[in-house]
């Protein structure tokens, strides 16, 4: 296992993915969410309590969308295994000077890169219409850690799906279903309140995007509570479990099976 090889594959992955389709997915779509929801709901919703303070809806949504980008990054990066298998590049790369582990690591690096690029762009975009940000050094640390964990979690999740699902239709419908569920059953767009139905709450609390959104938000406003640290720990554990699942399923992927 040579990390330089994985780095090289990561560059390849990014280069073959810098097409307009990916950019729309990674930048334009979340920007639309940010602008439309930010302005439209921003006028309807007043202050939202977060930790010990309260913030307006635009301030609530912006870090949420930054967190949301980890799931988008995961789809793009994890999906590479699917398209590389489908279009023969998986076999081609494995008959070039690369090991399976290096290929896998290349995808994990790619999900991190897309996660940071995507959320970074969203943070910049939201700067344009936020009245107030007070990110501290500690806040930056929290944001970096949670974006990393989120990107890894979702990269591995979609990699695991790509390792299992072969047909185009099944893969596409499954990823769309999951991405909707993950994005909406989370605190990206709205907080969990006492009025949230119990059944939905379960879904929210299983979903790591809830924790990632909460922690990024806490980092944004630099009000870190112990709840945030617990959430970070849960995200860490969920990510490790997902990495393990992805590695197990990836090891079962055979070449020459179409």
């Amino acid at each position, binding site marked *: 296992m040579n990390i330089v090889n994985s780095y*090289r*594959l990561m*560059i*390849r992955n990014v*280069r*073959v993915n810098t*097409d307009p389709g990916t950019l729309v997915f990674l930048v334009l779509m979340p920007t639309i969410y940010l602008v439309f929801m930010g302005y439209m709901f921003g006028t309807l919703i007043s202050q939202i309590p977060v930790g010990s303070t309260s913030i307006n809806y635009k301030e609530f949504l912006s870090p949420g969308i930054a967190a949301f980008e980890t799931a988008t990054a995961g789809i793009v990066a994890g999906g590479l295994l699917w*398209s590389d298998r489908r*279009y*023969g*590049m998986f*076999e*081609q*790369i*494995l*008959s*070039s*000077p*690369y*090991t399976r582990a290096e290929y896998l690591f290349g995808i994990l690096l790619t999900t991190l890169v897309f996660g940071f690029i995507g959320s970074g762009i969203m943070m910049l975009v939201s700067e344009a219409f936020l009245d107030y940000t007070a990110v501290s050094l500690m806040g930056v640390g929290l944001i970096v850690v949670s974006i990393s964990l989120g990107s890894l979690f979702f990269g591995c999740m979609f990699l695991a799906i790509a390792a299992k699902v072969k047909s185009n239709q099944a893969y596409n419908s499954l990823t769309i279903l999951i991405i909707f569920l993950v994005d909406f059953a989370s605190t990206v767009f709205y907080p969990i309140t006492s009025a949230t139905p119990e059944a939905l709450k379960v879904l929210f609390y299983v979903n790591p995007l809830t924790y990632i959104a909460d922690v990024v938000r806490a980092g944004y406003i630099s009000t870190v509570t112990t709840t945030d640290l617990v959430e970070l720990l849960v995200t860490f554990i969920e990510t490790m479990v997902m990495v393990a699942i992805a590695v197990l399923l990836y090891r079962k992927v055979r*070449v*020459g099976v*179409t």
Partner: protein
Amino acid sequence: MLSEVLGLTSYPIEVEDLKYTYDGRKYAVDGISFSVREGEVFGMLGRNGAGKTTTIRILSTLLKRSSGSVKVLGMDPSTAGNHIRKRIGVVLQDESFDFTTVEKAFDVYGFIWGVSKSERDKKRESLLSTFELTDVRKKRMWDLSGGQKRRVQVAREFMHDMDLLFLDEPTSGLDPIARRNILNMIKDLTKDGLSVLFTTHNLEEADYLCQRVAIMNNGKILASDTIDALKTGYNGLKTVEVKIGGDQTGAESMFSKVSSGRVEPPFERELPYRIVTENTQETMQEIIKLALADSVQIEWLNVRAVSLEDVFISTIAGGV
């Protein structure tokens, strides 16, 4: 020759009693042995499902063999995969491409192989022109025709240096001119010492390109030799081809009565029956007589020397 006497000949590929099974029940490769010499183009001939691709997957380290011994560039693919992969090139049978433009596909592929930027630019330009892809260089891979895609896939492999090249049906889907260009390019490269394992079911190609061939069927090698030596076994024999016109129903029973030579029925309806025979006069007379008696309509009849294709078909027919 001298090096052979001294035992210095190196074999880029040595395979001994190689077996592989995908499902644990049926052997896709069933105990084959062969070797490829340095600087030669070795052809593997066989119908679909013969086991050619599986063999290439094992030699190129993609699959681990079930049993037997294998040496690629003197190393064992199941333990030295990494070292082997650095020195081989593989053109897979199935398409493989990135979602980029043609020129970017070349560049990214060279990048994967660690080729420097200036070297990549140089190689890309020369390959684009050699493989006549200059007109489509800005096009996206998925907008290309099947033949153009195939040409990119083969050409791309030459972005990097190698000692051994695997070509799995590289000419499938190509027009005759592109086909000939690729064959000539491979011929040129082997002059510089590149060894090639080449699979095809096009016999003319093998005849044109390969020094030695192995004929494979059902996972086994039925015959392996130089093309000339394979044809020698058929010295003095001729092939009579008979194309049946119109309704083909009576043809099978009619040909079963031929006694003056060995009959090979066609793989496809459009092709002629072939009779390999020592006495062409006798065979032709016999066939015309039988055709009249059975009211089978002969569209045309032709006599020619035995070709590699005849050897191939007879070998396979004899092998099942």
